Each structure stands twice: as structure tokens, then as C-alpha cells.
């Protein structure tokens, strides 16, 4: 298993290797980052605000004189963790509904697909803004809002895959054998759509990272004292005029994370399609 994963990684084109390295790097940062932080997240440790790079502060200091590197390591955990959880929730919900539609017949499929088509025609950022205005933006709600926004996209792809598979001979055989709908959905159809679904999960993750950091950037996402990478960009926006590292570092961090995932998915070669940002 390990050996085959290693073989596969070695067979990737250069862009895919870069992508994989970035993904592994950010996963590691999300897990271990806060332990490696040189200073406490909220501590005022520098005498100057918007300090440049120095030996004491590798990424300088922020608008209150806090250590940017420490805040970035902690912010990455919020960004990666929230987005991964939301993408997982969106994918499992969308796929579960898609399987229900595929084995449930037209009576289930028609209304469900109509509803999802309607939701997909609301631009994701606009939809999430309305949801945030109505419900607020605690961490739990943000997770649910991001997941809910991207369920329809996953549903559309998973349904297309599942409906195709449901027509295959081996599924017809299972049906003739008298297998129940649940068994057909889980044991016959689902295993054969895992690969494209994984690629779609990666895409959802990218969309959700961009959505959540966009919301945080607008001040409508993760609220202080918690801070994800988007909040770090927002709180240091006054440093933009002097080109502060404090604003550039978190923005570049988000970009390397999302670009990494994108490069990896592209190199693996299951190009899913769906609603973008």
C-alpha cells in the first residue's frame, strides 16, 4: 500500500509533485503548526508594527506587533480544518442524496434534481452572504454554510456518475437478484465512483478555502479572537500601503494551499466540473 502510493507519487509530472508537496506541507502545518509556533498567538512581542523579516520574527510583525509566523501557523489550522470538514460534509451529503436519487426512481430524482438545479443557479458567494446575514458566523455555522453552499455542485456530479452506473448490467443483475436499494447504492454503485468523487472532494476543498477566506477577509467569516488566514489578511489591510509582509504572507499561504491542491488534482487527471467561485 505504502509502496504503491510512493510509486504513484513518483510517476506524477513535476507540477503534480509540486502540488503533492504543497498539500502535504499544509496538512502538516495544520496538524503540527501551532506546536511549532515561536510565540503565543495573541502575544504582543515586537516593538514595531509591520516589521519586516528578521531573525526574531521570520515573517515580521503584524498591525499590533504580534508575531506573524505564529499567527499564520495557527490560522492555517482554522483554514485547513474548517475547509476540510466542510468539504467532507458537502461531499458526503451531496453523494448520499445523489445515490438516493439514482436508486429511488423518478419520483425521488425529479424533485431533488430540480431543487439542486435551482440552488446551483445562485452564485456561491452571494448565497453564503445571504446565509451569513440570516444565521451569523460562528465557527460551526460557517462550516454548515460552506458545506450547504457546495452540496448542489457535488450532487450534480455524483448524480451523473450514479445514474450512469445504475444502468450498468452488473447493477441490473444485482437488482434481479433481489438486492435492496440500500445495498445497491452502497455496495454496487458507490465503490465505482470513488475516484472521481475524491477529485471532486479536492475541488470542493479549494472552493471552500477560497469562500471562507473571502468571507473572513470581508469580516463576515471567522470572528476574533479566532483567526483563519483570511482574517489575517483583513486585520493587516492597513499595512497594504507600505507593502507589509504581514498582509502578503497569509495571502500567499492561501494561494499555495489552493494552487497545490489544484495542481495535484490536475496531475492525477480526474478533472471534475462544477460550480466555481
Amino acid at each position, binding site marked *: 500500500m505504502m509502496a504503491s502510493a510512493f510509486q504513484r507519487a513518483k510517476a506524477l509530472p513535476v*507540477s503534480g509533485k509540486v502540488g503533492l508537496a504543497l498539500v502535504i506541507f499544509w496538512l502538516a502545518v495544520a496538524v503540527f503548526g501551532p506546536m511549532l509556533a515561536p510565540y503565543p498567538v495573541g502575544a504582543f512581542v515586537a516593538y514595531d508594527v509591520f516589521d519586516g523579516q528578521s531573525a526574531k520574527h521570520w515573517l515580521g510583525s503584524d498591525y499590533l506587533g504580534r508575531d506573524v509566523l505564529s499567527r499564520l501557523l495557527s490560522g492555517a489550522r482554522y483554514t485547513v480544518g474548517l475547509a476540510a470538514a466542510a468539504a467532507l460534509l458537502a461531499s458526503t451529503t451531496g453523494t448520499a442524496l445523489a445515490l438516493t436519487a439514482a436508486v429511488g426512481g423518478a419520483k425521488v430524482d425529479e424533485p431533488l434534481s430540480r431543487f439542486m*438545479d*435551482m*440552488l446551483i*443557479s*445562485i*452564485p*456561491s*458567494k*452571494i448565497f453564503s*452572504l*445571504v*446565509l*451569513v*446575514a*440570516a*444565521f451569523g458566523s460562528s465557527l460551526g455555522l460557517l462550516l454548515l454554510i460552506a458545506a450547504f453552499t457546495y452540496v448542489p455542485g457535488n450532487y450534480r456530479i455524483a448524480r451523473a456518475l450514479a445514474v450512469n452506473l445504475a444502468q450498468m448490467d452488473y447493477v441490473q443483475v444485482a437488482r434481479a437478484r433481489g438486492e435492496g436499494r440500500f445495498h445497491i447504492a452502497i455496495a454496487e454503485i458507490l465503490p465505482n465512483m470513488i475516484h472521481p468523487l475524491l477529485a471532486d472532494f479536492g475541488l470542493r476543498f*479549494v472552493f471552500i478555502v*477560497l469562500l471562507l*477566506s*473571502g468571507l473572513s*477577509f*470581508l*469580516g*463576515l467569516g471567522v470572528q476574533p479572537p479566532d483567526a483563519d488566514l*483570511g482574517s489575517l*489578511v483583513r486585520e493587516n*489591510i492597513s499595512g*497594504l*500601503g*507600505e*507593502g507589509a509582509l504581514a*498582509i*502578503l504572507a497569509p*495571502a*500567499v499561504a*492561501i*494561494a499555495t494551499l*489552493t*494552487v497545490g*491542491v*489544484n*495542481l495535484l488534482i*490536475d496531475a492525477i487527471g480526474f478533472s471534475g466540473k462544477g460550480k*466555481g*467561485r
Partner: protein
Amino acid sequence: MAGASTRSGMSAALTLIGKRFASSLLTLLLVSMTIFVIAQLLPGDAAQEALGQSATPEQVAALRHEMGLDRPAHVRYVSWLAGMVSGDPGQSLVANMPVSEVIAERLPNSLLLAALSALVAVPVALAIGIGSAMNRGGRIDRALNIVTLSMVAVPEFLVATIAVLIFSVKLRWLPSIAMASSDMGWGDYLRGVAMPILTLSVIVIAQMARMTRAAVIDQMDRPYVEMAVLKGVAPVRIVLRHIMPNAIAPIVNAMALSLSYLLGGAVIVETIFNYPGLASLMVNAVTSRDMPLLQACAMIFCAAYLILMLIADVTAILANPRLRAQ
């Protein structure tokens, strides 16, 4: 007979377009219901919020009545929808003036920004898309693929930040805050909005170039192109004379689809540059929980999105030779 068959083909296409248009309208209606339901699910209500905690229940009830909040939800929905259609989506709670006036002030700014960004993005995206399709599998194509693939995933505010760093901090060519007002001349206006346009274009170009490349490559694999190659037609001529006429519709389709990225991008870009447009207005409405204003802005964005999707589908229908030739 050719004339008759063309006519029936056209009418078949028209029927399809009519159906597509009707389904867009139906979707818009359903979207309006969804937005209304979500926006009205508020834990507190607007009357309570407007009066604050110290208000007596009688005061709240009186204001609720005045604002029409004591009517059943479906009645409120119908009157809101009727207001939206007739151009009067209610009263903005925060600005204390009609939503239509607040929006009328901002909408032209956003439309202008979108139009100018599209004007920049379309030719650049076409050049990149066609260029990399002609170089398919080559070095330039692979490099452009990596660049556009990365740009698709870069957050808008990073593009904006880098643009500000380069053009206003280092080079000092452009102001870092967008300035737009009616009394400005065109030159000043363009200087003021250059940065938002640049940022929005970069976001759209990446997506548009990828889709243009796909549309052109789809044509390249057709037998008629192979025929032209075997005849010895020059590559540039193949693209311009043989492929482009057939790829126009898929490219227009791709343009319409990727222009929808402007809608989401505008939310961030208008805010970061302080541009007085509809998207920054909507963000303010979220912050102040000004629901009538928010609902109206959301509906305008959804309508714009549906119009772009409609254009994309209609070009696809018109381009389908099976429909034209039926």
C-alpha cells in the same frame, strides 16, 4: 426545399430557446422564494432590532404592523415579489430610503466595472486560449496550463494585494483606492478604476482562457481539420478560416460562463478598493443586517448569473447544426 427545412430548423431552435427562457424565469422565481425564506428566518425580527432592547411590546407591535411584519409569510412574499417586479423592493432599514434609490446609485458603477473588465479580459483570454490550443502539448501550452490552473485557485485579494504593491507602492502609477464619481473626467476615472479592473480581469482571464482552449481543441480533433492539414493548409489559416467559424459558438458559451466569475470576484474587489458598487453595497447590507436591501442585491446578482447562463445555453442551441439542419 432547403429554405423550408431551414425555416423548420429555425423554429425548432426558437421553441428550444423559448423553453430555456421560460425555465430561467421559473428558476428565478424559485430563487426568489429561497432567498426570501432564508432572509426571513431571522431569529429576531427587524422591528425588534430597529427599536432596540428597551422598546415596550406595544411599540414593537406597532412598528411590526407599520412594516407589515404581522402579515403571514406568503402574503409578505407576494407583496415583496410584486414590489421587486415593479421596481420598488421596499425600504432600506439602515439608509432609511427606498432600496430602489440606494441601488440606482450603485448599479451603474458595477455594470461599468464589469463591462470594462470584460473588455480587457475577453481579448487577452482569446489570445491565450487560441495560442495554447495551437501549441497543444508544447512548452508554451504546458506553461500556460500551469499558470492558468494556478490563477483559477488564487484568492482575489492576493491578486489585488500584489497589484497594489506593484503599481501603487513600488511604481506609484495608480492610486490604491478606487475613486469613482460622476463629475470625474474619463481619464481620471480610468486611472481610478484601473486596479479593480486589472484584478477582476486576471481572475476571469484564467478561467476564460482554459475554456477557450478546450473549445478550440475540441474542434481540432474533428475530421475536417485533419482534412485541411492533409491538404497542406498553413496552421494559422486552419485556425482562422476553418476552426474559428465553428468554434465561435463554444467560445461565446465559454465567455458567458466565465464572466459569471465577475459576480463573485466583484464582492471582494469592490470591498478591497472601496469601489462604490453593488457588491460592496451588499456586503454592507450583510454587516448591518439590512434585509430588504440584501434581498434586492442578491436578486440582482442571481438574475445577472441566470442571464449569463441563458446566453451560454442559447448560443449552444443556435450552434447545434442538428437543430439548424432539421
